[in-house]
């Protein structure tokens, strides 16, 4: 992989661009980095009121952790989801936002997108650390699951990186992409078992049976969603404290590899034309 080598060669630039994002983001705010926690907390509050208190969604208690708190159960999937949304929207605009630089200086262009990925990863790690502390207070025993958690977080980072590399290029060709993707992401969260447990879908799918006389059920199609697999894995590790299902893990690995390869491929094909297109 040539492009991967090029990224490694410009790792110092990548680091500096990432620091630019992180340092520049909360400059001149009183609470600084704390703001990055405000957003997930606010959505947690809203979703908990709507889904747990009003609609009475009740996920099963963590097995074997025994934790039974909707807000925590929600966050285990919501934080990865929020991370994915931040990366795709941030990465998608990275090339257009830095068009002056691209038109005037020769450097590894993918670092612009990847620095967005890394700065969001930094924020996400802080959020996850806070969540792990909260889970421990609620009675879960998360420490033995940390190594696996790190691996799957890395897989999601790679998946999001691939998606945003591809989207950043498509967005240069068609500026509509950013708005379209914004809407798709809004719908996508409801197509993923983040706010409600997947058992709700499973039971309805079973009632309906195979689609159009085949063996394919609604659930099968529903589970093609990469974020569904990631949500399941993160909940197993953090909320239930047990090994994720093998097939979920393999799907995560598969999605991450496919996204990364396709993303880099699309980026590499268009990289040289960027200064002209912008």
């Amino acid at each position, binding site marked *: 992989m040539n492009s991967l080598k090029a990224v490694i060669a410009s790792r110092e630039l990548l680091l500096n661009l990432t*620091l*630019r994002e992180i340092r520049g983001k909360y400059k001149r705010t009183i609470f600084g980095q704390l703001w990055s926690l405000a957003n997930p907390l606010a959505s947690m509050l809203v979703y908990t009121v709507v889904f747990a208190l009003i609609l009475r969604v009740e996920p099963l208690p963590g097995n074997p952790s025994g934790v039974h708190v909707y807000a925590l159960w929600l966050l285990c999937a919501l934080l990865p989801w929020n991370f994915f949304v931040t990366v795709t929207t941030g990465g998608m605009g990275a090339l257009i936002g830095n068009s002056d630089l691209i038109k005037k*200086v020769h450097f590894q262009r993918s670092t612009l997108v990847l620095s967005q990925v890394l700065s969001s990863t930094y924020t996400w790690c802080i959020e996850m650390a806070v969540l792990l502390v909260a889970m421990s207070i609620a009675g879960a025993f998360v420490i033995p699951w940390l190594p696996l958690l790190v691996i799957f977080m890395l897989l999601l980072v790679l998946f999001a990186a691939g998606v945003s590399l591809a989207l950043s290029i498509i967005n240069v060709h068609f*500026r509509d992409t950013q708005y379209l993707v914004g809407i798709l992401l809004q719908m996508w969260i409801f197509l993923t078992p983040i706010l409600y447990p997947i058992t709700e879908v499973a039971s309805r799918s079973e009632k309906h049976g195979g689609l159009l006389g085949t063996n394919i059920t609604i659930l099968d199609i529903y589970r093609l969603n990469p974020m569904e697999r990631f949500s399941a894995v993160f909940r197993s590790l953090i909320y239930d404290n047990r090994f994720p299902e093998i097939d979920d893990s393999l799907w995560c690995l598969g999605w991450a590899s496919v996204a990364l390869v396709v993303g880099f491929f699309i980026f590499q094909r268009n990289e040289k034309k960027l200064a002209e297109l912008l």
Partner: protein
Amino acid sequence: MTPIAISVNSVSKRFRIYHERNQTLKAAVMRGRRLVHEDFWALTDVSFDIPVGSTYALIGDNGSGKSTLLKCVAEILFPDKGTITRNGRMAALLEVGSGFHPELSGRENVYLNGSILGMSKKEIQSKFDSIVDFSGVEKFIDQPVKNYSSGMYVRLGFSVAINVDPDILLVDEVLAVGDTAFQEKCAQKFRDFKTAGKTVVIVSHSMPILQSMCDSAAWLSHGVLQQVGDAGPVISAYKEATLGHQ
């Protein structure tokens, strides 16, 4: 035979002029697969060599393709035909201070800009004092650059770029930054470059500057190479041609 720093081999560069510059999905769907565009050749079959250690001027009217050529050499644009080979580390001064983050301090921006231009952290650290010294903004180096005057801004950007210490330096119309004292410093820096045996390629409209600095020149007109050779004759030929048109 002096060694060659940059070799330009029958380079052509095409731009597509879209009649309907409408970059939307709707426009793409409406016009179907056929893209309505006209080819515009900004450069046609340009070939010449720039020897190591020379200070080389690219001259021509506005729109003659000299900046496009410089960007092709700088690997920002890529030629559609032909090749360009470069021997040695290259730095391009096409615009100074691009990539500065307004909210970050001068110090942080020196590191950021330096790494964009291809310097390693160690290199920047060792050159940091001379960069700041050259720019003359020591007092404000820990202030966010958005508080800088526009002169300080470009001076800092210029100092970073000129301290990349390349074998080949590409310059596009940025010689006129800062006050007289700073310009004199820059001129001195270019002379140092020359004595150190480095190659400089300059695009400019200021004939007096070019005449005093450059030893060779290439004259482009509408993307076609008109004349190459020693700076004096080429510049006077160009001057004659433009004055003759008027």
